[in-house]
């Protein structure tokens, strides 16, 4: 805290950006922004224009509103169902996963018990098993339990976030001083009371960081819903848009060219994430810096 105060009073020395730095940063900027620009531009094109005009500039006709109209009405408005599903999985799954990761991370960081060091190691190593190897066994296991092809299986499986657990453990180790916990216990507070009133507030920035991370991961998750779901009404956006995309190609016969819907649908699909990021940005940045100021 004192360091920050001194820093503000002293004037910062002027930085000179070198030309190579500017070039590299511009290249990176273009690399990140160009696909997004292409997406915006392509959403304004019809199918015909998509394949006959330059990719990075607008086509002959401005079809954004036509595309949007078609997007929300095609196939009885299934896009809105997909969007709703994605929001459900991401919010419920994300919040749930973050709560579990917080509880787990706090427990692993602040308590010593047999296996406390090994558990995290095992979880991290288990992450190395490729998802494709587990796909069929998981499907068969949950099929025998009768819960495949439901919304709950996606939420249930999204609750397991090994990376979130690791991040929270690291954050809790830094943000929650043992002395504080000892003092609270001496004062007679129960573990639950300590967690709810003291620790949760200390972990708030980390919580939001992990929440953002989990929400994005679940929003973009393709493989899990692909294997577990076969009813298109339960699909999230990733699987749904891919299905539309493959309707336009096929070795034995294409049925519908939905390219304009896939592109417009992709654009609409990332807008909520952008909003979430912008709104929660200050917590995220604070979370990153929180550990360093101690």
């Amino acid at each position, binding site marked *: 805290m004192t360091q920050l105060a001194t820093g503000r009073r002293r004037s910062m020395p002027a930085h000179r950006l070198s030309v190579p730095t500017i070039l590299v940063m511009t290249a990176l900027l273009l690399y990140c922004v160009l696909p997004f620009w292409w997406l915006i531009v392509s959403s304004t094109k019809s199918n015909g224009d998509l394949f*006959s005009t330059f990719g990075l500039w607008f086509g002959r006709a401005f079809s954004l509103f036509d595309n949007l109209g078609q997007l929300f009405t095609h196939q009885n408005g299934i896009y809105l169902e997909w969007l709703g599903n994605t929001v459900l999985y991401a919010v419920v799954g994300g919040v749930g996963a973050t709560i579990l990761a917080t509880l787990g991370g706090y427990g692993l960081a602040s308590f010593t018990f047999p296996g406390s060091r090994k558990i995290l190691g095992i979880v991290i190593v288990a992450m190395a098993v490729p998802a494709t190897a587990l796909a069929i066994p998981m499907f068969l296991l949950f*099929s025998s339990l009768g819960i495949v092809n439901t919304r709950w299986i996606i939420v249930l499986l999204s609750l397991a976030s090994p990376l979130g657990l690791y991040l929270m453990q690291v954050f809790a180790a830094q943000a929650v001083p043992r002395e504080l916990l000892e003092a609270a216990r001496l004062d007679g507070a129960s573990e639950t009371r300590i967690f709810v009133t003291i620790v949760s507030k200390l972990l708030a920035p980390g919580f939001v960081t992990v929440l953002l991370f989990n929400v994005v991961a679940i929003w973009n998750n393709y493989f899990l819903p692909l294997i577990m779901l*076969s009813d298109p009404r339960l699909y999230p956006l990733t699987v749904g848009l891919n299905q539309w995309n493959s309707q*336009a*190609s096929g*070795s*034995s016969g*294409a*049925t519908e*060219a939905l390219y304009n819907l896939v592109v417009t649908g992709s654009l609409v699909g990332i807008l909520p994430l952008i909003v979430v990021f912008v709104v929660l940005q200050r917590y995220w940045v604070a979370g990153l810096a929180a550990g360093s100021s101690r």
Partner: protein
Amino acid sequence: MHHRKSHSRALVGVAILSAAAAVLTGCASSTGPAASDLTVDSVDKALSTKATITVWSWQPGIEDIADAFMDEYPDITVDVVNAGQGNDEYAKLSSSIKAGSGAPDVVQLEYSILPQYATAGDVVNVSAIGYDDLADTFTASAYAQSKVGDDVFAYPMDDGPMAMYYRTDIFDEYGIAVPTTWDEFATAAETLHAADPSKYLTAIDPAGAMNAEGLIGQAGGVPYQTDGSDVTIDLADEGTTRWADYWSGLIASDAVKSDSFWTDGWWQALDNGTYATWIAGAWAPSSMESTIPNSSGKWAVAPVPSWDADAPTSGVQGGSGIAVTTQSENQAVSAAFARWMTTSDTATDALTTDLKIYPTSQRIATSDEWLGAQSEYFGGQEINRVFSESGQNVKEGFQYLPFQQYADSIFSDYVGAAFADKTDISEALVKYQAALVKFAGEQGYTVK
């Protein structure tokens, strides 16, 4: 002391959980498929029973036809689900069959994949329930493709007789006559490419297994034969070799380009005339109309070039039928629905007019209305006549492997690589055959 007590308590909890899990998985074992005691009678009666069936089909517009069915037979509820197109659907179908639950009652299957499920006993043999009496209602080509061996396993829904789609403007510009034989096609290819090196008469897809199978069939090749668990694989037979040598020559001389189909670049090339023809099944027009509408009026359809000018033959690429799964608990109702869907006037008219798929109904395929339909995209040409003739000239006898999906998936590793590298296709076929023989052995088939 405090945590030692909870430690042992936790261990007990874990033990209980794992025991419970073991019991649960043991209890929920998969039940075997329902016994098939279907008769024509039971199928007819099924139309007045109360039941709900699930149909997996990727054909857009099927829901409307299902609605019409439900209007006519109000006791039956039909739930149409689009579980993916082609391989996506088959992956889900295979895992549901393996898991013992979750498979639909009625499923859309391409003819090339039908043997795979038929020989595994996953779809119902419908020959016994009066299907053979319906033979005359279907076109010969469709009927032949719904058979595996002597029995029929699917009701044909659409068909894919091949045709050659060509750019009239390019042909006129370079003075190329529409080729009717493969020799003429080769000459035309060389002429076009010599006149304009940026253009090719056609492109060939390294992942185009089904296109290759169609053309091999046209050349008289019968590389695969299945008889129960005996499989014969001979990719060096006369017809297949004829196909291989022909395309090896064309690709090596640069007159034909190897390019991945269904990509952005390939659609653009078709649109701007880089590729002057596209040899594909009869399903291509609707795809072209919606994806590359800008070249409307510049295309026309001609029969696939033939090997023998006096005896033209054709091939098939794609086409699918609907089958009843053996896992279904409503087989009679499902069979009734599948039959209605492919034979009733209401359904077949809707399939052709609204869904615009190629008819398998003999009634429609011979009607003046369908034959005389003019296509604006193809410059007002009566394109159905070309397809109809192609369908009648399909060289019969081509068979698929019981693991055709696997064979198609490794096609690009062997044969597709030969397209791309411009090497001899026959040599690649030898290696492809070896890989297929190895797989067949591993899967328990006897390879002759």
